[in-house]
């Protein structure tokens, strides 16, 4: 049982496999950590959607080496990114930069959400603002009384809700109060 538990623990603790080989790593752990940060954010140019750290492709390995060589030469992270973008374009960045060409990418979804929610909001407001229903005719009043019983004070859906087909909430309302229409659900 302990063996199974140990195996489970190992499986839970396992890191996703990286393609970075021990031989490529920098001696300086701080520089190597920066190289990893950069490598995770750079896209392998021959794989559809893998970072260069995740890819076993030859070019990805060359790019990892280039990243480390630049870091060792004293480049900042941004300088390394600039070096790669100058050669491979924005394609090489897994996270696209915020600029005119990518505006739709960044703002499209939030904008659509805003548009949809405001459209729904507008529709709801408009529905609420519709004029109150005309008062009941004598015939309807009579039918209502028979439906509700003699005293006319039973718990029942409001006319407003009933006439719209909205399910009733709990509450005691007078069935004969059309003046309250359109307000009881506010």
């Amino acid at each position, binding site marked *: 049982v302990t063996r199974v538990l140990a195996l489970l623990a190992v499986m839970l603790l396992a890191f996703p496999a990286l393609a970075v080989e021990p031989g490529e790593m920098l001696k300086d752990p701080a520089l190597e950590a920066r190289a990893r940060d950069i490598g995770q954010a750079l896209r392998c140019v021959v794989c559809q959607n893998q970072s260069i750290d995740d890819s076993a492709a030859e070019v990805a390995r060359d790019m990892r080496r*280039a990243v480390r060589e630049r870091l060792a030469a004293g480049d900042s992270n941004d300088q390394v990114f600039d070096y790669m973008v*100058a050669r491979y374009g924005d394609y090489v960045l897994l996270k696209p930069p915020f600029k005119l060409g990518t505006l739709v990418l960044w703002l499209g979804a939030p904008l659509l959400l805003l548009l949809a929610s405001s459209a729904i909001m507008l529709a709801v407001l408009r529905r609420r603002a519709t004029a109150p229903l005309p008062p009941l005719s004598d015939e309807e009043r009579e039918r209502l009384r028979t439906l509700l019983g003699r005293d006319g004070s039973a718990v029942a859906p409001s006319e407003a809700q009933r006439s719209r087909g909205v399910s009733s909430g709990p509450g005691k309302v007078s069935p004969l109060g059309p003046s309250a229409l359109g307000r009881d659900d506010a």
Partner: protein
Amino acid sequence: MSRRLLFLLPLATLALMAGFFAWSLMAGRDPAAIGSAMVGRPAPKLDLRALRDGDKPLTDTLLRSGKPVIVNFFASWCTPCLAEHPLFMRLAQREGAVIIGVAWKNKPEEARAWLARLGDPFLHAGLDLDGRTGIDWGLSGVPETYLVDGNGIVRFHFRGPVTETEVRDTILPFLRDGKS
């Protein structure tokens, strides 16, 4: 009335998407295409040992000779390189184009044997065994071809084998007009 029109919205969305997908298929849009960031910039450094025995090493001066040059990265193990090879032979022999070949991740003796077998279109040939120069040039694989003008500015960058059409429509006009 306007509410009725609202029901057309899903249909319109569908039509829009169908149109986009149809266009993608017809126009040959390739979402995997990297494009090139090199075009319009000065060519990166060229500092390579010669592929052929007795040749001088390749340096930047080759790219700033005042004459347009073609830089072709190739390898003997690369099949598309085989496909484009006759076009470079023709450009070298008939048009007198200056073509710089770079054997990329290729054992020099294998690259030399490949050129000996098929013909050697390269005025200068260098060796990029470890792929360092390739990264510096924004290479994603072989074959890739750069057209560099007389001032050392990259004017075109082909990822993948050059085709007959590209020779006719791009390379030949570049060689003609790029001469200064």
